[in-house]
């Protein structure tokens, strides 16, 4: 590190540029640097970052904890950004001393860094209340990426978590932990959750919503002691009650991180004191963000940081512009399933303030607008925050509202759930992204100038929705309207319009909330009815995620899966028994022949999958045929493991180098009976002559001299695609393990009806290798263990349901004898309408 600095120091004379050193690599600091860069300054920029990460979106840490986003997804600026802008980023380097007189910063490894201009963006630290036992193992804060990584790790084993603090951060932490499958209790000191943002009624509404998620809430509870022998075991309250917990998160608020500034002799009260130009008491030192105190106010939210950054960028680049005049405080709770927004003076504390409000307990909707002298000064929205920006705009603009007062709460009639609010009817000046401060007009011109097609492109050039992200829906609406036919959905699409969440998120919901049936998922997160796409898809997901412990609902399955046969164009079915590796016997052939004769099967066909197909079977004959055959279902009718084709291999072939028949039969035996996102066809060949076409199969094995190549993502269907080599190994066991690893990885990560050949191209071979054959032993063990558990639950449905159908009428139609005239009565006028309920 030291050398790097020396190099910089040496180059200084030639460059003439002033050296701007930024302490802190968080949202405020980098947003300000971004603004500075826009002004193309003659500056050399060094950033000292205590955290070892690139600049990430701290607001979205809760989404990472909740499993809704990955770490990569919340980076605001990646390495490329620093490189492109010649910013020298020192990661994991802590500044420990500022010498304002000599204009140097000392880092923890002792290297001095001299500056011309110094920007303090040190943010804030979590406040740890003076409770006994906060140093015990298992007690954490929730403030940075390292905290989230620790919490995610701990959630794997924790049974009962307790969050101290029912503010914004505490509730987001609780939701995240719940999503990781750990029971959560939130304890809060006062009688109201989020009392900084909510009034009494709002607090009640929020408490009900939080409890609906399955989180226990304890109000008026003052924690007195964290108990446990080394590791936390329970938490005790002032009134004596004890709640067991093996994971405790302290979320009691934040305090500006002002230590450095204080020691450097800057004026510091609660925060580092700055004037309207964001200058500190030292002319060469500036400050921005949560560490700052402006006109007696300290802000812990994102929007003010951006406001401040814009002002400071002008100050630093020697172009002092408009003053910073403080920000309207606005908060959005980012907890999946709860909409909450609060802004401005929501309490209506002044005597001449009026309140306009609406409460609907059944729908959990609370809307409150505080009006003062004909102007909106504050709002609380719970359950439906779609008007958040409209009210925020009114507060910021200080506009008179007498004319629209009657329709203030509901500008348009209350929206039907799921229908988008019409953003295009709003004025261009309206702010869409409240965090960054981007207006509708700015978004529209950015879309036109840059020909944006996706929301992420809009995000990249305007930064809109890169804050808390809740305006992404509005941005999309605008993009759709402006880009028209050019609009493209993001890659991460929702599973189905009936359940509008990405597949990964639905998997988490199923897992953490143990949603056992398709109907549960549809009722809680969807439209309740589903369709022919998502019902079978969700049937697969509940099965896959719960490893076969789901509740089977035949009504959500396609007819093929209801009767374990493939429906044909005339409504009859086909029957394909399993013939592992394409190997059969005289006994099996005899049984198949007998069945074909007995049930008058119109056609017997050799399929492309090295097995036999009985075509034209009536539904009611299916269980009888299965019983007569006594064979295993070939699953030739569904999205599941189909078959393994093999060549003759070393058993008979004079060219064979590997025993492909045995390996193929073993592979089929290991995987048969398992369902997959789309059908999986496999092949094993004993030599590269590839007689069973293994290189155009979803999973293939190719015998080579002294080993096997395991190949994936091949296709010879609608598309033809040569498979990619996953790995080359020496033994049959290694080849088998590689195939099983990929199989389970695909089961867990493939999109519904995405074949492996699209899956491999979407994720890339390198990613797949890294996550399967090149993954850590622990990851591999996890994949194989989940596969083992799922396989243990897999059955041969023909054997089970030929004896015990899931319903007495599963295979039987109704036949009305024509001679039942006696029971027939004429339909009288007005007698029974269509669809008469029971």
């Amino acid at each position: 590190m030291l050398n790097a600095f020396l190099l910089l120091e040496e180059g200084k004379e030639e460059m003439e540029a002033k050296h701007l050193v930024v302490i802190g690599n968080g949202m405020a600091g980098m947003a300000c640097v971004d603004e500075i860069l826009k002004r193309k300054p003659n500056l050399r920029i060094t950033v000292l970052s205590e955290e070892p990460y690139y600049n990430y979106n701290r607001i979205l840490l809760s989404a990472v904890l909740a499993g809704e986003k990955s770490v990569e997804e919340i980076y605001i600026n990646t390495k490329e950004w620093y490189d492109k802008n010649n910013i020298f980023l020192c990661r994991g380097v802590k500044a420990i001393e500022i010498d304002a007189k000599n204009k140097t910063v000392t880092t923890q490894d002792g290297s001095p860094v001299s500056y011309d201009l110094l920007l303090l963006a040190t943010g804030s630290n979590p406040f740890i209340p003076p409770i006994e036992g906060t140093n015990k193992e298992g007690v954490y804060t929730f403030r940075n990426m390292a905290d989230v990584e620790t919490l995610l790790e701990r959630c794997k084993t924790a049974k009962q978590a307790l969050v101290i603090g029912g503010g914004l951060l505490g509730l987001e932490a609780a939701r995240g932990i719940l999503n990781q499958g750990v029971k959560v209790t939130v304890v809060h000191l006062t009688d109201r959750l989020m009392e900084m943002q909510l009034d009494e009624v709002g607090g009640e509404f929020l408490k009900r919503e939080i409890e609906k998620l399955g989180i226990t809430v304890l109000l008026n509870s003052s924690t007195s002691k964290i108990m446990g022998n080394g590791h936390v075991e329970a938490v005790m309250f002032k009134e004596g009650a004890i709640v067991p917990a093996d994971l405790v998160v302290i979320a009691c608020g934040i305090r500006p991180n002002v230590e450095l500034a204080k020691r450097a002799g800057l004026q510091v009260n609660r925060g580092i004191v700055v004037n309207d130009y964001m200058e500190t008491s030292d002319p060469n030192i500036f400050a921005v963000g949560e560490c700052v105190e402006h006109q007696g106010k300290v802000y812990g939210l994102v929007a003010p940081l951006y406001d401040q950054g814009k002002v400071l960028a002008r100050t630093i680049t020697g172009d002092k512009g408009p003053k910073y005049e403080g920000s309207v405080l606005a908060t959005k709770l980012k907890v999946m399933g709860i909409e909450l927004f609060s802004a401005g003076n929501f309490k209506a504390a002044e005597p001449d303030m009026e309140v306009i409000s609406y409460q609907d307990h059944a729908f959990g909707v609370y809307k409150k607008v505080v009006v003062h002298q004909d102007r909106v000064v504050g709002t609380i929205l719970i359950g439906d925050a779609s008007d958040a920006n409209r009210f925020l705009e009114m507060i910021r603009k200080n506009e008179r509202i007498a004319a629209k007062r009657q329709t203030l709460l509901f500008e348009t009639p209350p929206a039907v759930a799921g229908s988008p609010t019409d953003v295009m009817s709003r004025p261009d000046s309206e702010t869409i992204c409240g965090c960054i401060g981007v207006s509708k007009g700015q978004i529209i011109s950015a879309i036109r100038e840059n020909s944006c097609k996706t929301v992420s492109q809009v995000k990249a050039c305007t930064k809109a929705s890169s804050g808390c992200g809740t305006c992404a829906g509005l941005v999309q609406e605008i993009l759709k309207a402006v880009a028209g036919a050019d609009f493209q959905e993001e890659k991460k699409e929702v599973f189905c319009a009936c359940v509008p969440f990405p597949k990964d998120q639905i998997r988490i919901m199923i897992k953490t909330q143990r949603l056992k049936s398709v109907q549960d998922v549809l009722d809680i997160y969807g439209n309740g009815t589903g369709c022919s796409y998502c019902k079978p898809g969700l049937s697969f997901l509940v099965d896959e995620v719960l490893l076969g412990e789901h509740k089977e609902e035949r009504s959500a399955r396609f007819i093929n899966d209801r009767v374990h046969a493939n429906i044909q164009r005339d409504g009859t079915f086909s029957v394909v028994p399993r013939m592992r590796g394409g190997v059969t016997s005289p006994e099996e052939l005899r049984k198949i022949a007998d069945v074909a004769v007995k049930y008058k099967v119109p056609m017997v066909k050799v399929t492309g999958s090295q097995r036999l197909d009985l075509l034209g079977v009536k539904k009611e004959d299916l269980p009888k045929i299965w019983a007569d055959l006594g064979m295993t279902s070939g699953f030739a009718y569904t999205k599941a493991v189909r078959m393994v084709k093999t060549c003759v291999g070393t058993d008979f072939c004079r060219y064979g180098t590997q025993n492909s028949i045995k390996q193929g039969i073993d592979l089929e035996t290991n995987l048969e009976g398992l369902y997959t996102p789309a059908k999986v066809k496999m092949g094993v060949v004993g030599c590269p002559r590839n007689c069973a076409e293994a290189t155009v199969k979803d999973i293939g094995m190719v015998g080579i001299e002294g080993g096997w190549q395991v190949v994936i993502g091949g296709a010879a269907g609608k598309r033809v695609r040569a498979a990619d080599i996953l790995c080359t190994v020496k033994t049959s066991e290694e080849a088998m393990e590689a195939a099983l690893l990929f199989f389970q990885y695909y089961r867990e990560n493939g999109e519904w009806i995405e074949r492996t050949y699209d899956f491999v191209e979407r994720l890339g071979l390198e990613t797949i290798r890294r996550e399967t054959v090149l993954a850590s032993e622990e990851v591999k063990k996890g994949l194989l263990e989940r596969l083992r558990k799922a396989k243990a639950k897999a059955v041969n449905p023909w054997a089970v349901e030929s004896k015990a159908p899931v319903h007495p009428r599963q295979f039987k139609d109704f036949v009305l004898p024509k001679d039942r005239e006696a029971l027939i009565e004429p339909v009288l006028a007005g007698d029974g309408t269509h669809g008469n309920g029971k």
Partner: protein
Amino acid sequence: MRKWYPVAKEGEIPKKEGRRVYFGDHELALFNLGDEYLATDNRCPHKQGPLADGILAGKAVFCPLHNWKISLETGCALSGGVGQVKVYPVKVTENEIFVAFEEGELCEPQGEAAVVSTELDVKDVGG
């Protein structure tokens, strides 16, 4: 004149599934929506797919052959293409489900096994 025919008993059709009902050579489809029963012709207007084997979505069914969506209330195709099937009144009396129709107005059964052998749909015959 339509008459009420007793077709099935409550509980004989699994919830949110349909079943085919033969009346001589003719047939209809009877669906159990959970809180009510609805009946339609059993042949999709597109390629005569058996609607009784479809997936239900609210008061509509998706044909198992090519995914046309048919309203069970009006019989109209809601997606896939343009077409309509007949709908029949249903009532439940003392555990017995009645459907009203006139003899002869029901559709012919979907192709018998006899037509299979020559013309197979090769799209996904399994294998």
